[in-house]
């Protein structure tokens, strides 16, 4: 197990380096002088010349990359053009909002998907199963922004149950914070519900046909015990991997949801930086989203081994 973690960590290094190189290269894809691009439209020629020197733009590309990476490792991504503050500071201010939204959405998707998945697996092809399947299929086909706007129309315009947008920090007003959270959480979580549901249903169907479940029935155990204690435990393991992958989707979805519901999180920051060509912020948000996604999936892989004793991380994979 320990050697597996070490191997994973060793392998993650070249991948992380390449990830950072791709992010670094983003700025070189922009037509024009990177220094001028970084400083925005109001830059003076003196400023541009100074930054060119600071970034070492006269150096070879690889040297520039090493310089940039050295700064990035220390959390120095430069200054934001639109916000006029250090990029890292701007990110730290907004991270809690996105973390709250992300965790709430993942929990929402899991809490909805598990019982529905179990029920539709135990009554495969019944009426409920069909309804669940059609709904989950729709869930994967509706883009987040369409769902979000639809929810606003229904629950904020027609029935005035929830606000159409806005964010109050939990520390200021917990009730208002939770009320603001409902629609964004549903918007962001629904796509994940559909996927998790399919996963739980599929693994439950597979597991319910196994011998140890037949033994459980033969012992005369009651349905809830067989379904939720014996079968579900093993069905949840594959879900863990899927949820790990969903962290990436959640980060991507936050971009849309925070824009629609006017949440001041990292997603909204990413969009405003994309629209205003605030490249230091773009680089930082893209890099951090990739690194956190990598980190979560490393945790998931390691956790998988801890949770499932049948899995060994021997040399043969």
């Amino acid at each position: 197990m320990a050697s597996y973690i070490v191997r994973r960590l060793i392998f993650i290094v070249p991948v992380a380096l390449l990830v950072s190189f791709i992010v670094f290269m983003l700025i070189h894809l922009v037509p024009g002088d990177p220094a001028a691009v970084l400083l925005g439209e109001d830059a003076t020629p003196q400023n541009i010349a100074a930054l060119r020197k600071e970034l070492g733009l006269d150096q070879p590309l690889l040297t520039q990359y090493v310089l940039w990476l050295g700064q990035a490792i220390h959390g120095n991504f430069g200054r934001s053009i639109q916000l006029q503050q250090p990029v890292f500071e701007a990110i730290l201010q907004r991270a809690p909002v996105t973390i709250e939204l992300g965790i709430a959405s993942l929990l929402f998707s899991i809490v909805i998907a598990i019982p529905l998945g179990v029920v539709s697996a135990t009554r495969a092809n019944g009426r409920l199963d069909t309804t669940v399947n059609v709904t989950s299929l729709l869930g994967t086909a509706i883009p987040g922004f369409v769902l979000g706007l639809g929810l606003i129309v229904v629950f904020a315009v027609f029935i005035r149950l929830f606000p159409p947008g806005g964010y109050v920090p939990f520390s200021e007003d917990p009730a208002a914070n939770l009320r603001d959270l409902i629609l964004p959480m549903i918007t962001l979580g629904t796509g994940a519900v559909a996927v998790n549901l399919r996963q739980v249903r599929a693994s439950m169907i597979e597991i319910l046909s196994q011998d140890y479940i037949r033994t459980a029935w033969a012992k005369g155990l009651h349905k809830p015990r067989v379904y939720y204690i014996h079968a579900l435990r093993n069905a949840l393991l594959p879900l863990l991997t899927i949820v790990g992958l969903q962290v990436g989707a959640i980060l991507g979805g936050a971009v849309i949801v925070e824009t629609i519901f006017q949440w001041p999180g990292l997603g909204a920051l990413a969009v405003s930086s994309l629209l205003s060509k605030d490249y230091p912020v773009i680089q930082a948000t893209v890099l951090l989203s990739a690194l956190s996604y990598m980190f979560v999936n490393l945790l998931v892989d390691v956790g998988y081994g801890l949770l499932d004793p049948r899995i060994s991380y021997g040399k043969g994979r």
Partner: protein
Amino acid sequence: MARDAETRTPRSGDSLLPFDASLAPAGAAGGALALPMDQEFAPRERFSLGDLLRDRRWFCGVILLLIFLAAVLAPLVAPYSPTEYHPAIVAQAPTRAHLLGTDELGRDILSRIIYGARVSLAVGIAAILLGGVVGIFLGTIAGYARGWVDQVVTIIVDAILSFPSIILALAIAAVLGRGVTNLVVALAFVRIPIYARLARGQALQVRSLDYITAAHASGTRTWRILLRHVLPNIFSPLLVQGTLSVSFAILDESVVSFLGVGGVEPPDPEWGGMITAAQSYIFSDPWMLVGPAVAIIITVLCLNLVGDALRDRLDPRTARAAASRGV
């Protein structure tokens, strides 16, 4: 929401057949659902008319064909010009003259949806073709050559996969600037890994087969083996993935346009962009959203169902095994 669904690990019993289940007798749906993993299947199986009629998901194929035809024949099909302003009929609710209403500039929404289909379909298909070709190239070479080539490709693929795909696509689209070609490049780039992985897994399987060894022994050049013997054998799972991926590319494309980060130049119609415009009128004229939203949902849903149907039909075992192995 795209990546997780795309790289989901399907298992037996994953073939959700909602339409069969609801419309066909219970026995028929049950049979399809219980499609066993180890079922014997003939890779060279051809579609027959009977299969077509039995699997109701092919109805979605017909809808897709209609959308495609409408897009191609837009000037003939669309009732009005998609870009001409009509100040007298601004933001009209649906009427008999304008079935889906008019937008904030008095343009017919139905006509804009029909023209918008051109962009969505063209960008979606082009992105998958480009990303697919690059990914298949990388994956096939990696799986066939093994060794350091394989390792390098694996690192490249893992690095691209480390990004939440829509964020990377948005960043590339923003950096490259507006325009359909740039959008295609951005969306294609984030699709490379899925094809590379799939192709690599398939190539690994195929390379150890006897006839490849025989081809080697008879002195056939490597590129010829790859092109003539390896690629045709990994075609079916790639086709399945391609169909499913077009829907994800269309979803991503609509997000990029919705956020205004890239895509077509206004006033040209595009579904995501139409929804952005409708967003400003969400309190006064929420019906403006309906047309473009339904267009996206139906297209994506039909692509998903046709992709699922193709997977069940063409290649239940290899497509699943390769996708779930996550190599």
